[in-house]
């Protein structure tokens, strides 16, 4: 059986506002609400809503014969909730048909896979949870941000419970091989790999409305003819696109919706091909061989590698700086900080810093709020500087951390001592023995002053930095309370 896999990526980053260096330390809100909301409205009205409506119609018309697949980033879902909840509803309707598969990815549409395994796993889990929560389906197939994949990443996600991944059928990886088959991971052959047919996919994504293209205009009939040719010696045609292709990159006037409307009809009428989702394909087809991807690939630009995000010094610097915080983030429990951490990781921020803008301009400048990669870098680094200041106060750097911990321990000990003495005082007050009581008061007199200062210091510190690591903070609070209580007791 031969299959066609239609898969669409849905993602919108949280775009950052213009953040100058004099905002550092003063302004802790980083996002351009107006821009994000207006882009979301625009894309929702031009693409997500009409396209979802059309897909729902098609599914109603063809039933289980028509299937599509989506990946929706966590950040996109957050923005749907904020700005266009009706889009989320329409995806939910699609999910309910059972003809739509949703893929797993990192919540933040991030490149964390190259930095920290634990953080990577966490982000994927978080994304899976969100998909379950909003759409009531469980993703079983993994796709890396912008189809980023390597043997190693594949093996990692297999261990996370994803036996199937999708990625780019990059020319330099495939060589003479065809992407129209199912492959398996070179490190872990149990994992199945679906590869994008970039020629057929890009015909729609980039060339569809190009009037100087020799094949213009592209009809569903012609396109299905090409698929038939491709599948003469192949088993699956994997068409992976940005969802924004429909109505946004290719305008409604270009006829892209009509194309989408007629495409399943044409396939089901004239061919024996079946629409299938990645997990169905992995079940039905046998992997023909292993595909070896020692160096990461993606679906971006001509090079199909990571250089769109990590190709110059600006990007490397920002990326490394961000992930140098991972360890402390793992200790952090401040919710606001953790939300910003999610949004700051989005690969788009690094994409805007690409100096390839000069050559691959058009794609890079799409939705790009910055005039130049330098602007993007400076802005991001300013925000990161503020973020680091906040993180520093929430999770002090090691030395300070230790100092605080030891101080807290001292307070704790002293408190215990005070309690002990208090108990003794009470005991002595009850008992009429004079000699021992005078001894006890002497003792309390000597211990009083330090306990007081400690008690005063602790709440003051807790106030100035809300900041202190939660555990120590709670400790301090309790010690402070206790100290206050003892004080009261004493004044009584």
């Amino acid at each position, binding site marked *: 059986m031969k299959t066609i896999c239609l898969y669409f990526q849905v993602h919108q980053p949280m775009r950052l506002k213009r953040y100058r260096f004099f905002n550092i330390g003063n302004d802790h809100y980083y996002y351009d609400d107006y821009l994000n909301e207006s882009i979301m409205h625009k894309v929702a009205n031009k693409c997500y809503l009409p396209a979802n409506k059309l897909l729902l119609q098609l599914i109603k018309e063809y039933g289980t014969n028509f299937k599509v697949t989506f990946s929706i980033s966590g950040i996109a879902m957050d923005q749907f909730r904020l700005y266009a909840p009706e889009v989320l509803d329409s995806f939910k309707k699609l999910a309910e048909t059972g003809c739509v598969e949703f893929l797993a990815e990192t919540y933040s549409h991030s490149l964390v896979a190259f930095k920290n395994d634990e953080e990577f796993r966490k982000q994927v889990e978080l994304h899976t949870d969100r998909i379950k929560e909003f759409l009531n389906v469980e993703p079983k197939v993994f796709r890396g941000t912008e189809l980023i994949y390597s043997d190693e990443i594949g093996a990692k996600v297999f261990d996370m419970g994803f036996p199937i991944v999708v990625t780019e059928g990059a020319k330099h990886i495939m060589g003479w091989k065809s992407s129209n088959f199912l492959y398996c991971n070179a490190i872990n052959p149990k994992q199945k790999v679906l590869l994008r047919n970039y020629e057929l996919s890009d015909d729609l994504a980039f060339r569809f409305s190009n009037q100087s293209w020799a094949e213009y205009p592209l009809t569903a009939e012609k396109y299905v003819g090409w698929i038939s040719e491709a599948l003469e010696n192949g088993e699956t045609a994997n068409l992976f696109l940005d969802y924004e292709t429909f109505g946004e990159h290719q305008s409604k006037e270009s006829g892209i919706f009509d194309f989408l409307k007629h495409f399943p009809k044409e396939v089901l009428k004239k061919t024996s091909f079946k629409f299938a989702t990645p997990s169905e394909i992995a079940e039905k087809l046998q992997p023909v061989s292993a595909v070896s991807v020692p160096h990461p690939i993606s679906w971006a630009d001509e090079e199909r590698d990571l250089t769109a995000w990590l190709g110059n*010094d600006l990007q490397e610097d920002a990326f490394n700086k961000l992930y140098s915080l991972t360890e402390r983030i793992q200790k952090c429990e401040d919710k606001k900080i953790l939300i910003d951490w999610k949004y700051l990781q989005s690969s788009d921020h690094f994409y805007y810093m690409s100096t390839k803008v000069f050559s691959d301009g058009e794609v890079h400048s799409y939705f790009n709020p910055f005039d130049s990669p330098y602007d993007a870098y400076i802005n991001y680094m300013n925000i990161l500087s503020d973020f680091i200041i906040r993180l520093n106060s929430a999770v002090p750097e090691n030395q300070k951390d230790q100092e605080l911990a030891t101080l807290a321990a001292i307070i704790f000990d002293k408190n215990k001592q005070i309690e002990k003495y208090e108990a003794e005082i009470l005991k002595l007050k009850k008992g009429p023995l004079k000699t021992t009581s005078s001894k006890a008061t002497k003792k309390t007199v000597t211990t009083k002053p330090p306990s007081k200062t400690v008690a005063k210091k602790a709440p003051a510190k807790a106030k100035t930095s809300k900041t202190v690591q939660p555990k120590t903070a709670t400790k301090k609070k309790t010690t402070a309370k206790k100290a206050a209580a003892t004080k009261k007791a004493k004044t009584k």
Partner: protein
Amino acid sequence: MKVLMFGWEFPPHISGGLGTACYGLTKGLYTVGDVEILFVVPKAFGDEDHKIVRLIGANEISLGSSIRNYESFLRKISFIEIKSNILPYATPEEYEAAIDFARSEGKELVYTKMGQKFDFSGGYGANLFQEISNYAVVAGQIASQFDFDIIHAHDWLTYPAGMAAKAVSGKPLVVHVHATDFDRSGGSVNPGVYDIERRGMHAADKVITVSNLTKNIVINNYGIDPEKVTTVYNAVEPSKTIETLKAEKGINDKIVTFLGRVTLQKGPEYFIEAAYSVLQKMSNVRFVMAGSGELLTRMIHRVAALKIGDRVHFTGFLKGDQVQEMFDLSDVYVMPSVSEPFGISPLEAMQSNVPVIISRQSGVSEILQNAIKLDFWDIDAMADAIYGILNYPGLEKHFRQHGKEEVNNLKWDSAATHVKEIYQTLI
């Protein structure tokens, strides 16, 4: 083909971009080959670089022109110097002031504000315009005595000379616009200067502008047919292969540099305001304003009023090696020009591996990629860019790697080839 070129300044007496550009272009035309140049300049000093140019004998020329003969070297370019009091960059007001000063002091040598030296030994011109027309008379005489195919005049002071030469010889005229009075005056255009510029451009068969920015000014403000105007970007001499000893920094602070004439056109006040903004957040940084000009005292007052005098330094006009030294010490170079037809100095900074911030209102921003571009009035953006380069290592690293390479690819040879093509359309 033979070109009669009315140019300016030759090394080592270069006071600004115009001289550098004339020299570079002439050298480029020589390298491209098949072009003979008769180079005419107002009174030179005698110790110019004669490798490229040769002074030829022309005793017939009056008005105190001095001519020498250099047989030894390259014969392609002939060099004529004319004793004249005109100098580039001077506004008529500046010129009057300079002459008055010379008269009252009884001195023969005067240093202008730009450090440009000029000679008053032969009688004073009544005013600058008189001097220009005197120069044009000489140009006419030269045109009648020499043989050439094309006339090329650089900037307004030589346009009348170019026109005179054209009238005498009937040969086609190319005027090269390095700046217009709209750039120099910041809007309050001198009608006399404008008139000469306009007549020169209209009389010309072709107008070469140094950027599209200037091209638009020429088309819109001087009413020149767009067909007649072509942009030829300036270039830069490749940096010397022998690395001279780098100047040692005596302090640990970062240095941010403004280098240029302190005039309205160059936007020095925006630099000071941005400096103030950066200094609110950073202490280990110093700002240097290198250059002099009519706004210098105002800038010093402003710095004092902002109470940042201990962090902003004024060096006055820098010459030759001092410029290189300044670049060596700099961590960021800023050119906030309000209106800069081209702007060669950022290229020199980039050759010294200094990251540059330039205004979008400069011609050079049309061709540079490895530079931060912003609007001259956007002080926040400027301060942010300065802070960014000083604090985030990615930018410095990126610019150090790619800036020099980009600049070294801007060659005078290609500019000269372009100019030669323009000549060919006229012959």
